[in-house]
Each structure stands twice: as structure tokens, then as C-alpha cells.
């Protein structure tokens, strides 16, 4: 089963110069757990900031989220897979790197995200499709 079948195409982006407070606002507003971080310099690859980064690197340290920029704590570059890759490849990558999500890229452009929940759903569907061969 291909990554393109189960990736989430709706991704939210934030500028690397925005404050962590802005990022928190966006995450809560959209009810998501990560944002793609865009650099002002478009040649630089995209990064990612997650709720986990914000809680562990800012809030739990007692730092002021208004004074810290997203680019300071985001991870660069994002870990990418191709939309034509098999889900199993993405799953292996996530396991090896202990990541909850990988991004789906075409060239330098992020076109989707594949999270643990998507992988779980894909494996369920694959099992169900195999039903008549079992």
C-alpha cells in the first residue's frame, strides 16, 4: 500500500520567525500536533515543530513562549518519504528514528504528512483487503 493512499494532505505551516506563542495558538486552533516550519529563505529545507517540542523545550523549562522563535527549537530538515513509497518503508523509518510522523515530499515541497494513526489505519485496511485470500 502506497503512502499517498493514507497520508493527510492538509498541512499547516508557520514561519520560522513566528513566536512559540503563535505556534501554540495555531496548534490549539486547528487541533493538530505539528506544524511545518517555513524559512524566509525559500532555498532552505522545511522543518517541523511539534507539541512535544513546545512542552519539553519551552514550557517545562519555564521559558516565555512569546520571546522564543519557532526556528530556535524546530527540527530541520523534516524527515521525508515519497508519496510512491510503501507504507512499510515509512513505518520502518518511523520505528528506527522513533518519530511519530514523517512528511511526504515531492522535491523540496511538503505535500502531506503520515502519522502513527495513519499507519495503523493503513495496516487495518490491508488486513481487511486480504480477507478473501485468507
Amino acid at each position, binding site marked *: 500500500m502506497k503512502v499517498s493512499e493514507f497520508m493527510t494532505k492538509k498541512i499547516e505551516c508557520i514561519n520560522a520567525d513566528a513566536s512559540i506563542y503563535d505556534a501554540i495558538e495555531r496548534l490549539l486552533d486547528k487541533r493538530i500536533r505539528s506544524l511545518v516550519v517555513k524559512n524566509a529563505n525559500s532555498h532552505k529545507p522545511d522543518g517541523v515543530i511539534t507539541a512535544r517540542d513546545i512542552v519539553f523545550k519551552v514550557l517545562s523549562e519555564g521559558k516565555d513562549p512569546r520571546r522564543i522563535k519557532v526556528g530556535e527549537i524546530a527540527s530541520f530538515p523534516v524527515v521525508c518519504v515519497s508519496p510512491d513509497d510503501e507504507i512499510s518503508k515509512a513505518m520502518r523509518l518511523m520505528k528506527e528514528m522513533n518519530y511519530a510522523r514523517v512528511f511526504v515530499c515531492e522535491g523540496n515541497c511538503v505535500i502531506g504528512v503520515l502519522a502513527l494513526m495513519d499507519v495503523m*489505519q493503513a495496516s*487495518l485496511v490491508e488486513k*481487511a*483487503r486480504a480477507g478473501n485470500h485468507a
Partner: protein
Amino acid sequence: MSKKHGLEIMLKRLLGKDSREEQVVDGIRNHLRLLYDQCCLLVKLLKDEDVVLIERIMDIEREGDIIRRRVFSELFEGAFIPYMRPHLYRFVEICDRAMDTVEDVAKYYELAQVPSNLKEPAVSIAEMTSSMAELLLIAYDTFQKGKDLRDQMLAIRVYEKRIDDVDHTIRLEMKNISVTSFWEGWWLGELCRSLSLVSDIIEDAMDVLSLIQVSLR
């Protein structure tokens, strides 16, 4: 004798002996196969914008009607035990409603202009709906073998949830689309509503199939 083995024997007795029963069983399978073919054509229609396919989708709906009538007639003439008949009627009726709704989507597609920003989510919904129709067909085969339908049921729910999410995105996008007349807006609204409705109906069909299986235990 194990519970599973007992169920298999019962299903064989109920589904496999008499030619009338066989015709019903084969008819339902053909009906589901047509639903899947129709959903695949809908994907192609939305993706390639090939309006010639609209006629084919409507033809398939008519073929589905013929099969539905034949199955109903066999059931009316005494196929299966009376207890089973209402459940089978209901299952076939729901599948037929799914086919009618796919036809509605094709008809509204002919009338409405799908804006470019809605094309990708609409294709995505159609693709997932076609996967659901495929899973319903697999579930029916699995049912005939007397095996558990849990996997197919869960997978269909997964797709239904994903379709709901994309449908929500479409509705949010629709707020920003300007239309030039009442009918243009109406047709586009009905197209989107019908498109996401097919998955709900397939989910209902899956629930009925699962209930039939439970009732046979």
C-alpha cells in the same frame, strides 16, 4: 464441533443448496460488483473530467435495478427461510441506494462546475468510497465463507472517518466559492452532499451484513 465450524455448516445450508438460494447469493454478489465498478468509474469521471462516463454510470445503475428486482423476486418466491428474507431485502435495498446516490453524483457533475480547489478533495472522497465498495465486496465473500467480518467492518469505519474529515474541508472551502445563480450553488451543494453520502450508505450496508452474520450464530 467448534462454534466457527457450526456457523460455516449453517451458512452452507442457508446459502448454498437450492438453486433459488444460489441465484440470490450470486445476484447479491453481482450487485456489489456493479457498485464497485460504478464507484471506480466515478473516480475516473472526477479525475479525468471525462463526461462520457456519466452515461455509463447511469447504465450501471439500471443494471443494478434489474439485479435488485430479480433478487427480490427470488426472495418473494421463497428463497431462504422467512426469518432471513427481511434482512436480505434490507441489505440489497441499501446497496441499491448507494448505486442511486453514485448516479446522483454523476448527474450533478454534469450540471455543476466543480471549482479547481474542490477537485482534489472530491477525487480523494471518490477514491476512498471505491475502496469501501471493494471492502464490502470482500466482506460479502468473507461472509459466505463463514468467517469473521471484524476486519472489513473496522476498515470501512476507517475510510468513513477519513471521508468525514475531507468532507469537512470541502464544506469549509465552499464558504469562499462565489456562484452566479441559485441553481449553480444548489447543484454544487448537492454534488458534494451526495458524494459524501455514498460512504455513509456503504457503512450502513456493512452494518446490516454484520447483523445478518450475528443473527446466524
